[in-house]
């Protein structure tokens, strides 16, 4: 799940690019090129999000039930802007689309900003906690407020997470990371001098706020209290600097985390200061996958409650109390054997389509354009 999360954050570069359609591109043909460069990749992000959802359902049904059914509005808004995205590439330039290209591009912008930001905020709650209770006996009438097992205790249903500064920091960090990755992707992908030059500048313009927000979130989280689980009694309690200790107690996670961060920084600074360097997206992309994966592992491993309840510690979700049965997890592991095969054909398809860089001419000659 952590790896899927890492891949998803990397692929959010599509959303990052969507949030810059108005600022990075100044002419109509530039906009069209950007839309087409992103439009050839949006389905990967979308599919990864859907798979992430399905895999969460299969692996941690109690998270699915608690978070989606509880942080209702946060998820609904997030999903809603992905709904708008799904039609926008195909519809925006088609005659007869009723609302005009501007509206569909506004949808893309909305998805670009909200999709990344809200996902960051929701992931931050893995460290900061949410307001819910879980009572598995409720369905048998043991609870005091109906049959529902997981109940959100804040009427804002997830929007209250926006009032937490630390959540906002990760939300903004993910937004600026996605924009940085998008800029790196454009540098790598486009055959368009003006856009490439501008994208290099955008790498830095977005890379710096990303670093800033990410560091604030990281340092704050490392120094804050975390949600520890007693391995014997399963009692959840607050522990000072829990996440810092998780890093220290799992040195391999820390090593990979640092490696990931270094790769992201290398991608950003090499691209900014070396005008010939175009492979920044691969360094920063791989770095993002590794960093996010490690961060998610820190949220759940080493006797930690990965989806904590801030109002009732004992309702917090741990890997053990919220996961599927061993049988289902084994079945899912067998299905995961397909993953290398899937990666192989994605690499084939990506390679087959990317042999040539994308310039204005290809938009007309490739047989399908947005």
């Amino acid at each position, binding site marked *: 799940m952590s790896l899927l999360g890492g891949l998803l954050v990397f692929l959010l570069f599509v959303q990052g690019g969507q949030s810059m359609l108005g600022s990075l591109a100044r002419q109509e043909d530039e906009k069209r090129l950007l839309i087409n460069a992103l439009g050839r990749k949006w*389905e990967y992000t*979308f599919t990864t*999000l*859907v798979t*992430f*959802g*399905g*895999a969460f359902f*299969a*692996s941690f*049904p109690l998270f*699915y*039930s*608690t*978070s*989606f*059914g509880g942080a*209702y509005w946060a998820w*609904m808004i997030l999903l*809603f802007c*992905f*709904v*708008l995205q*799904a*039609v926008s590439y*195909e519809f925006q330039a*088609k005659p*007869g*689309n*009723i*609302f005009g290209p501007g509206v569909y591009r506004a949808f893309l912008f909305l998805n670009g900003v909200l999709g990344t930001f809200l996902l960051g905020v929701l992931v931050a709650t893995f460290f900061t906690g949410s307001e819910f209770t879980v009572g*598995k*006996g409720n*369905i*048998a*009438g*043991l609870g005091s*407020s*109906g*049959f*529902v*097992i*997981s109940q959100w205790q804040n009427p804002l249903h997830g929007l209250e997470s926006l009032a937490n500064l630390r959540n906002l920091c990760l939300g903004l960090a993910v937004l600026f990371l996605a924009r940085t990755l998008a800029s790196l992707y454009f540098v790598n992908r486009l055959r368009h001098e003006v856009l490439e030059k501008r994208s290099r500048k955008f790498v830095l313009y977005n890379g710096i706020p990303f670093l800033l927000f990410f560091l604030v979130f990281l340092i704050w989280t490392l120094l804050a209290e975390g949600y520890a689980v007693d391995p014997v009694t399963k009692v959840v309690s607050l522990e000072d600097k829990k996440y810092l200790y998780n890093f220290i107690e799992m040195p391999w996670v820390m090593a990979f985390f640092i490696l990931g961060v270094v790769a992201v920084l290398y991608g950003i600074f090499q691209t900014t200061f070396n005008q010939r360097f175009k492979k920044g997206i691969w360094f920063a992309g791989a770095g993002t996958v590794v960093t996010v994966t490690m961060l998610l592992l820190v949220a759940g491993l080493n006797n930690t409650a990965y989806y904590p309840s801030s109002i009732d510690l004992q309702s917090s979700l741990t890997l053990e109390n919220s996961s*599927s*049965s061993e049988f*289902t997890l084994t079945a*899912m592991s067998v*299905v995961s054997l397909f993953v290398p095969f899937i990666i192989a*054909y*994605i690499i084939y*398809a990506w390679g*087959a*389509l990317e*042999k*040539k860089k994308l310039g204005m001419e290809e938009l*007309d*000659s*490739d*047989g*399908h354009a947005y």
Partner: protein
Amino acid sequence: MDLLSISAVNWARGQFALTAGYHWIFVPLTIGLALIMAIMESIYVKTGDEKWKVTTRFWQKIFGINFAIGIATGIILEFQFGTNWSNYSWFVGDIFGAPLAIEGIIAFFLEATFVTVMFFGWNRVSRKAHLLSTWLVFTGATLSAFWILVANAWMQYPIGMEFNPDTVRNEMVDFWAVTLSPVAYNKFLHAVFSCWAVGASFVAGVSGWYLLKKRHVEFAIQSIKIASLVGLVGFVMLAVTGDGSAYQVAQKQPMKLAAMEGLYTGKEGTGLVAFGVLNPAKKEYNDDVNPYIAKVEIPKLLSLLGYRNINAFVPGVKDIIEGGYTLPDGTTALSFEERKVRGEKAIQALADYQMAMKDGREADAADHEAILRENYAHFGYGYLETGADLIPHVPITFYSFHLMVMIGMFFILLFVVLLYYLYKKKMNNTRWLQYVALWSIPLSFLASQLGWIVAEVGRQPWTIQDIMPVEVSASAVSAGNIITTFILFSLVFTGLLIAEATIMVKQIKKGPESLPPADHTGQ
């Protein structure tokens, strides 16, 4: 049930129905078109005839417009299991989540990866690689249908699981029983052939319009030929798999079958209502009012189709509620009241088990667990109030079923006639047939929606047959929140549907590329 007002449940139900209904406008067309495109492109690669390439690419454009909106409505459905049905998600997520995840891993990536090669690869990969990509898009879409229907079928016929009183959920114990359940593969085949049918009627109808307008005649004839073949196979197979599905319904969801037929009092050698008008004066299942105003019945056919025996007893609504008849396995059917008592016992035993475990009274817990297991097959009945709660909306189920079957029969005839006229090379000049093909397009979409209405309205009140009613499945989200998202989705989906329809009409009016494509110009 303070938090969970019935109103919230009904809005959640309405929202799911709305999303599923919209999603199912686009999915069958996507899968049907994918098959038709793949066949056309195969002919192109085999013959090298550029005309087939033009034909393929035109339908690919229509596919693309439709594919996007299918995805848009699909993502909401997946997450709605969590947002709207969170209790359900925990109670059976151990089983239900797996097919959804497998759908993502195996089917969606295949589809999403090769759809980009299909769209953008005409000049970037070889002809054969492109053709393979088109077939893989079709395969991915079909596999996706398979896994989601495995999930749906499991709700209608829950097997391969065991209830765990510690985790308070059902856990999977037999993956293959879930995946290969007879309900699942019948449903899968029936749904997939309905996609072929919808895609074919759409292509035939649009081609009919070109013929009426005398535009792109050769292209239209090419298209209508493939569509008619796919359509005939699709509709004939719908009849075959429909029979399989009805047989499964008779065995596993007798109340649904009774509602489909408007059958209140069962008998041996029951006939099939070929055509009927229900009596609105029938208010109670056990009043003496005749359920029909008029009906035309084929004798003994329902017994034959449902139980493969012309003299078999088919229970009606009243029988199922009152019990006492002999089941196919020789045992006597329990009444609703008996099942309710057992269901309540099971729920109480679960509560007692939980308390006993909490207090460390393991011997007591074992006793409660034994009671729970003994009565678990009736668990969901413990949440229902009266026998009437077991009855789905009979008129909706009845009319949807009968209309669907009638439309299906009409299409078999239509495609036979189309193939005959194509064979005789008279299609070009037969305007009435071109009109019929064109105006039949909405009928295939309607039939396809009606099929889902039968399946889903007919299984009410159950989310999971006999185990969990809809009222207990929902999330603790107030009606106000759900109404807001319901309105939001209604507006957005309707707006997008209108936009999609007008874009498609524009593309159709524009027609295929001119022949021959001198420089592979796409758009």
